[in-house]
């Protein structure tokens, strides 16, 4: 059923349908509306879960770690500085192979303080071992939670997952969303069956000391699980499509790509604006297209390579930067296309809530065509 609702509430409703057994979260702008709604549902008995009120994000994810190790389906949500405070726990959750699902309402990191949107927060946890999904709109933001739990809890994967959606731009946007029913989600998402769990009647140890004789093998196993997730995501995407008729079969989405010479690559809500700009440019005879990265971890190396085979130039829009290097996405794309001869140019764009318009996208296309790239787009030189 189509309803018009705020992005945060669409996400909260999706989380409810996933039947989490433990939620621990700490409010932070622009994520607050999600956990506020879930706390309300828990208090009203609409959702059968333990809602743990904590004093910080560090505690929130620590509580989730413990609850997941005890065999529960758990949920949290955060953003920006809150995610930064979870840094240590993030690596532990992944290393312990606990399928925690957490929403990230993407926001810039301080200093200077910014409450506005970019993707620096989740990108900075790139190497932590969490799956990373990025939503273009609020329909996808809701749907990716169902998908994330199913993939994370699959015994071939057993890794935690971020569902990322742009703070304010999606979290605070009202738009129509097709709301799933509990019965549909129960068909798609079976209950969590932990392969092992903490149980005082049958004690085990988890996350013990790993000496140099063992540590590398743990890292290898975790990396292998991340790579196996690629096929599991596609499988789950197909199962989702069968029930809901919405296609998440790939880790990427191609838009008007077939004969495209200039190809944009981007993640998240900016892709909607890119699509509208592409339609305009196509009407004017420009051969442009978009490859949207829906899943950044695992990175869909083969999909990207295959999709960009015939491109003349690739313009990668990064709403993050690895200071002293480049945007995180352009580095991946260059790696994927190494040796192919396809030109890859990076554009740092829309940091800290700087608005990105169709006109901006058209200008980037012009820059890419003329070979100008690897730059910050739209800098206000007068304030430098």
């Amino acid at each position, binding site marked *: 059923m189509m309803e018009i609702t705020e992005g945060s509430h669409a996400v909260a409703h999706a989380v409810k349908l996933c039947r989490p057994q433990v939620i621990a979260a700490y409010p932070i702008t622009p994520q607050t509306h999600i956990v506020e709604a879930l706390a309300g549902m828990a208090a009203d008995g609409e959702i059968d879960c333990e809602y743990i009120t904590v004093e910080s994000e560090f505690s929130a994810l620590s509580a989730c770690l413990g609850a997941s190790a005890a065999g529960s389906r758990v949920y949290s949500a955060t953003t920006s500085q809150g995610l930064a405070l979870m840094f240590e726990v993030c690596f532990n959750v992944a290393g312990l192979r606990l399928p925690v699902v957490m929403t990230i309402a993407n926001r810039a990191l301080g200093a200077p303080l910014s409450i506005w949107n970019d993707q620096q927060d989740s990108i900075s946890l790139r190497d932590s071992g969490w799956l990373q999904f990025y939503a273009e709109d609020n329909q996808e933001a809701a749907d990716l939670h169902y998908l994330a739990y199913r993939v994370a809890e699959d015994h071939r994967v057993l890794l935690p997952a971020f569902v990322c959606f742009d703070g304010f731009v999606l979290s605070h946007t009202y*738009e129509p969303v097709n709301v799933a029913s509990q019965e549909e989600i129960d068909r798609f998402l079976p209950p969590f069956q932990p392969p092992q769990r903490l149980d005082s009647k049958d004690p085990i140890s988890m996350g013990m000391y790993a000496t140099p004789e063992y540590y590398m093998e743990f890292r290898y196993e975790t990396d292998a699980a991340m790579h196996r997730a690629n096929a599991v995501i596609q499988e789950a995407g197909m199962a989702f499509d069968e029930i809901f008729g919405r296609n998440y079969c790939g880790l990427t989405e191609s838009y008007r790509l077939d004969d495209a010479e200039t190809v944009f690559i981007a993640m998240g809500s900016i892709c909607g604006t890119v699509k*509208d700009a592409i339609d305009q440019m196509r009407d004017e005879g420009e051969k442009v297209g978009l490859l949207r990265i829906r899943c950044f971890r695992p990175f869909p190396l083969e999909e990207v390579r295959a999709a960009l085979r015939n491109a003349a130039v690739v313009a990668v829009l990064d709403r993050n930067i690895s200071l002293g290097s480049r945007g995180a996405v352009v580095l991946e794309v260059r790696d994927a296309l190494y040796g192919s001869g396809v030109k890859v140019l990076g554009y740092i764009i829309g940091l800290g809530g700087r608005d990105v318009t169709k006109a901006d996208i058209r200008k980037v296309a012009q820059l890419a065509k003329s070979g100008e790239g690897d730059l910050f787009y739209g800098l206000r030189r007068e304030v430098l």
Partner: protein
Amino acid sequence: MRELRIHGRGGQGSVTAAELIAVAAFEGGVYAQAFPAFGVERRGAPVQAFVRFSDKKIRLRSQVYEPDYVIVQDSTLIGDVNVFSGMKPGAVAIVNTERPLTRQVPSEITLITLDATGIALEVLGLPITNTTLMGAFAAATGEITTSALEDAIRARFSGDLATKNIEAARRAESLVKGVA
């Protein structure tokens, strides 16, 4: 696609107005998108909120720079903020003001002024003008129907508060219809 930009100050309910207009438009059978652009998060600071209306799914995520409609909740913003910026010829601006606007208004737009603060104070007992201006918007543009607007208000506010806000919207609506 048609676009609305709402100018107000933090605490005047601009974001709520955008949301309720989008809800009413969606109920009327079109795709709608509403979103805020916060400045600093405090009362009194200039705030913008946006609504898009379309027969097709809306993908565009940028802010609104060339609006078909503008609502100004507080005329003291005019001058500090270029509230009429980018308005297309024939676009409609609805401005809450007690007296005629002395500042320059683009000649090619349709300007509707009303004392929404006066109506809100009388009906609600509070100078919160968002629902009053929503009534004016319904009458001036036809983007939302009165009944959809009233449903949206009822879904957001309860009891007496809903009734009063609907009354405020109705007053503005009949006032603007009388003008138009």
